[in-house]
């Protein structure tokens, strides 16, 4: 189960509202490589992972991603506080505002709402862990791009933290694949699906 702890993983303190930036960063809330997808991907892949160490790693990283979802939500919320009539007209934000006001809704920056089509659960551990390597890279690049687009130091402080977590997670998933592979048939690691075949 999950128990809520009343603190963020990393402090989010954004002094200045900036709806334009919020409309970009929302992609890491509900976009194709965002934190909602990340948490659902790992927490869903756990069930068919064949070894307890791998189930544990997916549980731990999936839980951390829920904490990141909360942090990205906090960024969006703080960037859209107390907006003026002029600020809600900001191109790129007005289209969001008309449907969601200053609520936090899981969508890509393009306006495409969160879709489970952007994650995968294949039910085969090599396939799923390889998907996870790619997912961490794609999230890392999204944060790189946010750093290119944002000049707000309060936001970038948090984005740099989140970006670095993707690199660490990539490393751990890579190690998990090695851990898995060592237990498979060394002549043919694809001889069967260890999540399904007995």
């Amino acid at each position, binding site marked *: 189960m999950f128990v809520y702890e009343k603190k963020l993983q990393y*402090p*989010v303190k*954004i002094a200045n509202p900036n709806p334009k930036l919020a409309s970009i960063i929302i992609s890491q809330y509900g976009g194709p490589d965002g934190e909602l997808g990340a948490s659902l991907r790992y927490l869903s892949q756990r069930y068919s992972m064949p070894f307890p160490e791998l189930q544990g790693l997916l549980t731990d990283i999936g839980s951390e991603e829920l904490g990141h979802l909360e942090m990205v*939500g906090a960024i969006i919320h703080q960037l859209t506080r107390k907006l003026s009539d002029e600020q809600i007209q900001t191109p790129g934000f007005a289209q969001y505002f008309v449907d969601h006001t200053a609520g936090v809704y899981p969508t890509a920056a393009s306006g495409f709402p969160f879709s489970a089509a952007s994650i995968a659960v294949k039910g085969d551990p090599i396939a799923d862990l390889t998907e996870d390597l790619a997912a961490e890279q794609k999230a890392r690049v999204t944060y790189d791009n946010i750093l290119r687009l944002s000049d707000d130091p309060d936001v*970038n402080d948090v984005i*740099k933290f989140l970006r670095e977590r993707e690199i*660490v997670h990539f490393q751990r998933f890579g190690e998990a694949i090695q851990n898995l592979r060592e237990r498979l048939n060394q002549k043919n690691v694809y001889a069967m699906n260890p999540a399904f075949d007995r």
Partner: protein
Amino acid sequence: MQEQLRPGCGILPAAAPLANPYVPFQQYDPNTYGAKTGLVRGTLFPGLDLPFLGMVNRDEKPDTPMHELQALHFAIAELGLYLDTHPEDTQATELFREYAELYKTGYARYEQTYGPLCQKDAAQSGRYTWTQGPWPWEYKQED
């Protein structure tokens, strides 16, 4: 214990099945930052600290009880992921245990002064205080 490599380098198997993805294994007993530096860097491990376009959080967060808790919790989570794939690293296990002890003490001290972090602790003062704000996502200049 294996030969010490540069912090940013890991171990690959000498011979390994074809058509597989390989990420080098992080070496055992890796260098670590302290918890407060690790928090702002986003990793406890200098070898994995790979910033983009030289953008680095250089300053640690100001010493506040919340930042202290966040740094300790971060160190535990980061070492936890490391131990998930390196359960035999006794030094990292000891470090994990030490941070967990510090966190336990810091957590209790924080709750005494600032109120519950967890719903189960919400009536310790004799009153139910769980829903008293601010909640963590709200903007707070000070804390």
